[in-house]
């Protein structure tokens, strides 16, 4: 062995000794970091503090990272020893951080919920919606019922010629309904329509059967404005013209309509009546909504409430509209929406409906 060789060996030994000292120191340092960090995490009281610890230890410039950076100097055999230790500590720290974080978070929620409690009985901040006029509610229901039964909603002019309002409906010159005391006149042959039957006439003139329409709208009669009368009110009429339409069909249709509007328990009563444009004609009573027919103040003890007029279309009316009564027949009826609305909502004075006070309108 040459001196040189011995020197090399000694040097190698020295290096080995040095290394083993370094390993020991590194391991100790890692242990130290681990202990300090776990303690710090355990003592931390905020998420930010925990996060700071993470950065301080595990971040790019963190303490543990710094230690690991020195590993390059180690030999291939020793590197795993340090590596294993470092990973073990990193995992321990990470899991401690996660645990502490979740503990702190749940503490935070509790605090927040406690501190943010409010008086839920205080009034809400509202976006206010407007409401339909009560009469519109009733009309919407009617439209829906009849649309579902296959009818079309049709409208027409309110200022109308007498031939559509009267003449073609068999209401001849001289009929009391045409009196100036009952009807508003614009000219001798132009009036404010007294019924929406004028729409039926226009419809029959313009269309061939089968016809199934309802015609809602405003009508006008020369009545003073009081609790039960208004010179302007709303009607909804219906007309069906087809082959083999009968009085029985009218009955069935009205029964279905009323049951859908008022519920299955309602009963109908047909009484003979007279209208110039229908024959046979009927007035229809409904079992009282309030007492169900036993008699009360609403039905004046009768158990029945007069509801609408109806009938089989007079053959002359069909003929007037170019429809052959030998082939076709029809029925028609008309209801006053104002009346139905008043009864539905138990409104005792018709004037409310046209005075439009907000305190009234808000209710429906």
């Amino acid at each position, binding site marked *: 062995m040459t001196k040189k060789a011995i020197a090399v060996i000694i040097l190698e030994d020295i290096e080995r000794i040095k290394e083993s000292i370094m390993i020991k120191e590194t391991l100790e340092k890692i242990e130290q970091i681990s202990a300090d960090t776990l303690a710090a995490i355990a003592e931390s009281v905020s998420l930010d503090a925990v996060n700071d610890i993470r950065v301080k230890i595990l971040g790019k410039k963190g303490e543990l990272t710094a230690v690991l950076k020195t590993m390059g100097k180690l030999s291939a055999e020793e590197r795993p020893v340090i590596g294993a230790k470092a990973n073990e500590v990193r995992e321990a720290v990470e899991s401690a951080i996660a645990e502490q974080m979740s503990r702190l978070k749940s503490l935070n929620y509790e605090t927040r919920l406690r501190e943010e409690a409010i008086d839920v009985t205080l009034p809400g901040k509202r976006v206010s919606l407007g409401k*339909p*006029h009560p009469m519109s509610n009733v009309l919407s229901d009617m439209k829906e019922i009849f649309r579902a039964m296959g*009818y*079309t909603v049709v409208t027409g002019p309110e*200022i109308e010629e007498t031939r559509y309002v009267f003449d073609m409906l068999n209401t001849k010159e001289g009929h009391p309904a045409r009196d100036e005391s009952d009807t508003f006149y614009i000219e001798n042959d132009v009036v404010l329509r007294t019924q929406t039957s004028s729409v039926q006439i226009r419809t029959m003139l313009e269309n061939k059967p089968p016809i*199934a329409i309802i015609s809602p709208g405003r009508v006008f009669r020369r009545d003073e404005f009081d609790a039960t009368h208004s010179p302007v009110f709303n009607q909804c009429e219906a007309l069906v013209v087809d082959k083999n339409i009968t009085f029985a*069909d009218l009955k069935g249709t009205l029964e279905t309509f009323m049951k859908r509007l008022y519920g299955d328990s309602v009963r109908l009563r047909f009484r003979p009546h007279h209208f110039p444009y229908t024959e046979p004609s009927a007035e229809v009573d409904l079992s009282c909504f309030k007492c169900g027919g036993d008699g009360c103040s609403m039905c004046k003890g009768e158990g029945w409430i007069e509801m609408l007029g109806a009938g089989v279309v007079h053959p002359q009316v069909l003929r007037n509209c170019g429809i052959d009564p030998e082939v076709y027949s029809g029925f028609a009826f008309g209801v006053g929406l104002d009346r139905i609305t008043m009864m539905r909502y138990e409104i005792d004075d018709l004037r409310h409906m046209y005075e439009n006070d*907000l305190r009234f309108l808000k209710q429906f």
Partner: protein
Amino acid sequence: MNLSMKWLRDYVKAEMSIADFARGMTMSGSKVEKWTDLSDPLKNIVCAKVTAIERHADSDKLWVAQVDVGDGKTVQIVTGAQNVTAGARIPVVLEGGVVYNFHDGTVMSIKRGKLRGVESQGMMCSYNELGLTLEDLPYADTDGILLLDNDPEADKLELGMDMLEFLGIKDIAVEFEITNNRPDCLSVIGLAKEAGATFNLPVDVKKPVFKGVDGDLNLKVKIENKELCSRYMGAVVKNVKIAPSPRWLVERLRASGVRAINNLVDITNFVMLEYGHPMHAFDKRYVEGDSIIVRNAAENEKIVLLDGEERILTAETLVIADAKKPIAVAGVMGGEFSGIMDDTKEVVFESACFDGVSVRKTAQRIGRRTESSARFEKGIDAANAENALLRALELVEMLGCGEVMKTIIDEDFSNKEPVKIKFDSKNINAILGADIPESKQLEILEKLGFKLENGFIIVPSIRIDMELECDLAEEVARIYGYNEIPSTLPRVTSQIAPAPELAFEEKVSKLMQGLGCHELMTFSFISPKSYEKAGIENANSVIIRNPLGEETGVMRISMLPSMLEVLARNYNNRNAAGRFYEIGTVYLPVGNGFNRSGAPTDEKKILCAGIYGDSESFFTLKGMAEELFEKLGISAKFMPQGANKSYHSGRCAEITVNNEIIGVLGELHPLVLDNYDINTRAFCAEIELARLFEYSVATPKFKQLPKFPAMTRDLSLLCDISATAGEVGEIISASAANLEQLTLFDTYTGAQVPEGKKSLSYKLIFRKKDATLTDEETDKAVVKILRALENKNITLR
């Protein structure tokens, strides 16, 4: 029509309960409105006889009577009446009974009591305590007890008998609502026939007969206008004795709501009620020239009618005249001078057929509608005119109030041909949708007085409403029972397409409610003065010829007056704030023609909104409008409009779409607000619904969601104070590339902004559809915008 049940039972034995009677009649078509027990509340009043009477020990005025009330019972009654003597028969109300108070007509119950220490067990009754008048009981003492011994029917009295029965107070008056087509039911006999058919009871109506005396009539009748008078029957009664009518007649009149006057007049009223045919009687001594002429009046001819008022007649008026002058207006009312007087000796009875339309117009012209004219208006049966006259003459003889001349004048030009309707039970069932056997149908029709002859139904002349097969169907159905006919539901399929405008209106209505507005319903007519009040100039409205009043005199051409009324009412009712809308119709005159859809005027729907309240402003309403337009897919512009007198000139905008004005929106003019006493700011919008419909997008097409990021820039600009945000926004939009959204978020004047200038701050969002926009591109776009603004003297702040 008020029907006496007692009178009805003269013809048909309708003995069911009154409730059953009313129900049955109502359900067969004669609607009963109500019924009144005419004896109600009178109770416990009997015929009694004074057996002894002596002065009350402690009184100068009172008497103490022992009264036999029948069944061997005697009661003691203290009375203040001075006309009662022993032996007198009188009505007595017993303990527990009810009469009317002598002084004030109120209801009074009788209790046992003491008068100045003497017990009284009832009360003797005067006529008015029984609710009667001197017309009912002409013999009654006005100042004492009713002395029954003076009664023409005193021989029928029995002690203890029910006085209400004896005096004819016990009856029920049934009030019917008779439809226009059934004037025959405005009579006792008509209703008796209905009752017979309804309850399946025999009806006993005999043809009236009179004996008559021979002699010369001294009367000629001539009908000059046969169009308006198809039949005129006249009879003469001589040696007339005017007197009160007998009780049975008076009580029937009373129950029908008619006052008794004297036998002759009562007979005409009685016959009218019984047969439904109006009659007239006049004093023959005032018929000059012994002739009756039915003619048109001369223009301006005068007559004083029974109501004491003079009428000036026109040439259209049909009159009954003598040789010189009119003595009655045909079918309406007689002349005053020819009326029946107490000294009338000779009477002419008239039973005629006048044209309904003519009578109606005459009644209107002279301003007097009578029981008679009301009946003629509805239509009269010529055959019934004869029955009525015969009945009157029969009654004259029955009552002994004169000698009836045998000869009757009958000028008859009426059509005697009965109406015939082809009968086919299948067709009737086809109309009804029922399966009523032919035998049953015929049974019903026969009960109603129809006859079948060679396949035709022969209609009795009194049934002037019958004409067609459908009329027969109704007759069958109403007696068979409307409610016995089955109910079937037809399968209907409308071929008429629904108008999309209606669905649109419903949609707009819902959106307005979503915007916080309550729906209104206002009258279509307004006061012509309200235009000026609302600041609407040169209003040309459709005028109602016969309005209820000036307040409702014209058809509105604008929704604004209606809305202002509602705002004012709500404000004055102390509703602090409100949002309202109505989709209402306005009516625009179209001159002498028709509008495009063939209506006499142009009817347009207007969406009108009105708001007021502390948190409302021009911009809250504008915001509502913008929201509405956005939801309907409409892009509208708001341009300043200073000329509309309804609105604040500096706070009003015209709403335009595609350069077409579709409406207006603004704060109401302070003068208009003052006119309506609205002491707060209020805001209205008026938008034509048809234009909204036209420009709305019913079915929007899907736009891709942005795939690339947006760039945002805020710009604070300095511009002239007169520049509008609209103008500035348009400059920006016109010059910007890739600008997706432009939002004005602040306007400012004041410190740091030079005098005469204002600051507008915008947020601009840029985005490219197909690539990420770079900072450089965005900056370039901004530079371009700023350059365009600089040209208009608008600079970056």
